[in-house]
């Protein structure tokens, strides 16, 4: 029956059918979205409560706001680790882009022979778990007197993120229309001009996406930082592990700390959401 109606008036059924199951599916989507964000909302809420309200059962949802959690977090001198993380993430991201852009160019616009083998090699380095190299890395750092040195961490983070960036940038570069490059060549445009006026506009979102993802992965990294740094080069995630055993009355402080350390990634991720989505899907599937 409905098939018949559909065959005759293709637009109508979807309009008729949508309201009932549609409202249910919309509500379900909203419910799941809220359920996934609930722990983060709870973290934010708790971080703005006093320690007594934070540790109450049943939970105090409406409680007077308090900055005690943040105060005691910032009293514990978190600035050096936060600055170390910022340095490591920003500098390694810049290094990644400097190395990855020419490589991606060589792999897409003027592809070298066997370029896909090279791509496989880049990707395969991601299959090598960091933990399987951590001991020699530690021994090398020890012998070079580079333990607790943020520069050493930057080099490792650059190596860690380089394959992802090459992979993502290549997929964006492959989007550059060949006809436009040929036309530019025929018109006698210089290489720099071609790069600036034809290639750059296409891959700018790709560069932003790759940079964002490299920044996030460097900022989040724990294992290498934990093994290789102690006091002067300690990063924010290592600083956070100091809260692992903290119990009871410091819940607001733990939540404030977690929030502050996550804030740069949250802010960058929200601001560049579309690029993140585009970058992840392009990098992963193209």
């Amino acid at each position, binding site marked *: 029956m409905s098939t018949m109606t*559909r065959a005759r008036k*293709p637009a109508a059924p979807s309009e008729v059918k949508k309201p009932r199951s549609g409202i249910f*599916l*919309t509500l379900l*989507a*909203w419910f799941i*979205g809220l359920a*996934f*964000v609930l*722990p983060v909302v*709870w*973290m934010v809420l708790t971080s703005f409560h006093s320690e007594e309200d934070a540790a109450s*059962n*049943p939970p105090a949802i409406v409680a007077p706001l308090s900055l005690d959690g943040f105060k005691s977090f910032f009293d514990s001198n978190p600035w050096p680790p936060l600055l170390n993380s910022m340095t490591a993430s920003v500098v390694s991201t810049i290094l990644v882009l400097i*190395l990855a852009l020419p*490589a991606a*160019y*060589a*792999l*897409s616009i003027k*592809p*070298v*022979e066997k370029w896909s083998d090279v791509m*496989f090699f880049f*990707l*395969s380095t991601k*299959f090598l*778990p960091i*933990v*399987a*190299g*951590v*001991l*020699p890395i530690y*021994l090398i750092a020890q012998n070079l007197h580079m333990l607790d040195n943020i520069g050493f961490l930057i080099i490792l983070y*650059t*190596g860690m993120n*380089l*394959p992802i960036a090459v992979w993502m940038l290549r997929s964006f570069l492959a989007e550059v229309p060949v006809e436009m*490059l040929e036309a530019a060549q025929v018109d006698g445009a210089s290489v720099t001009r071609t790069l600036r006026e034809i290639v750059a506009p296409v891959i700018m979102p790709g560069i932003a996406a790759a940079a964002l993802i490299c920044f*996030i992965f460097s900022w*989040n990294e*724990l294992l290498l930082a934990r*093994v290789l740094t102690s006091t002067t080069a300690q990063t*924010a*995630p290592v600083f*956070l592990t100091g809260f*692992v055993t903290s119990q009871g009355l410091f*819940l607001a402080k*733990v*939540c404030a*700390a*977690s929030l502050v350390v*996550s804030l740069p990634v949250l802010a960058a991720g929200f601001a560049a*959401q579309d690029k993140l*989505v585009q970058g*992840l*899907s392009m990098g*992963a*599937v193209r």
Partner: protein
Amino acid sequence: MTAATQEERTDTAPSTPSPALSKAGRWARRAPLLPALIFLIVVTQLPFIGTLIVSFMDWNAYYPNDRGFAGFGNFVTVLTDVNARKAIFVTVVLTTTVVLTSLLLGLGIALLLDRKFRGRGVVRTLMITPFLVVPVAAALLWKHALYNPEYGLFNGMLTMIFGDNAPQPDWITNNPLIAIGAAIVWQWTPFMMLILLAGLQSRPLDVVEAARIDGASPWQIFTHMTLPHLRPYLELSGLLGAIYVVQNFDHVFTITSGGLGTANLPYYIYQTFYTALDYGRASAAGVVVVLGTIIIATFALRTVLSLFQEESR
């Protein structure tokens, strides 16, 4: 094969590689690639060769004089040591359940978000949030603010709903692996969802519309058109997820510190090397992890190969 087709597609030069690919030209093409390639080999491949060498050595930093060749001794220890075997088991169980769960959840949510509805952008933003929380911070949040038996949110909600006599389970102690797994699923589902959503939105809609007009049911459209189209996206998000979850250290370290039978291989290696200072045994365990990931990677590379073929159609 694929490489040749691809080269033709993107290369600006004519496909016959006579004058353009002269020796000098070839090196000019390779040059931009070399810094990245050399850097990557030095930073990521050489350490692993180091691990491979140390894995065949007796080397415990507590006994510096006993250093020497051990043959397969460390591997025998790793494969017979109860804790190491448990760690291998935990790694396999944790990785498969977490990846499958977050893949299924991610698929369901991606399908929900593929429809147009009021506030779709907002819901997507809400969904992405867990992915953007620093893993250690997320693990701390779950451990202290959600799971804690006395003042965690979960038991707090139970008290809110069932009153003072509500059950107050100790989530981590009762089911330590599930507690860790749930926290990882929460972080990785958004990643799966994002990739699958991108896959759904790249689906040619006119074909789906035509099928609907021809009388295909939503289930038929899903199994015969949506799933086949999503296959590469499903495979790749699953494999990328697996590669990251196999290496999970942050959640195990933060939530249980490897206690209660939750030590996975990365944590076991960390402990063997960092606390027990048994470099040889830690390296052998590292080699075991790599062998495991190579098995996953073999499937992954095959998938990627099929993607390349699709791209060059």
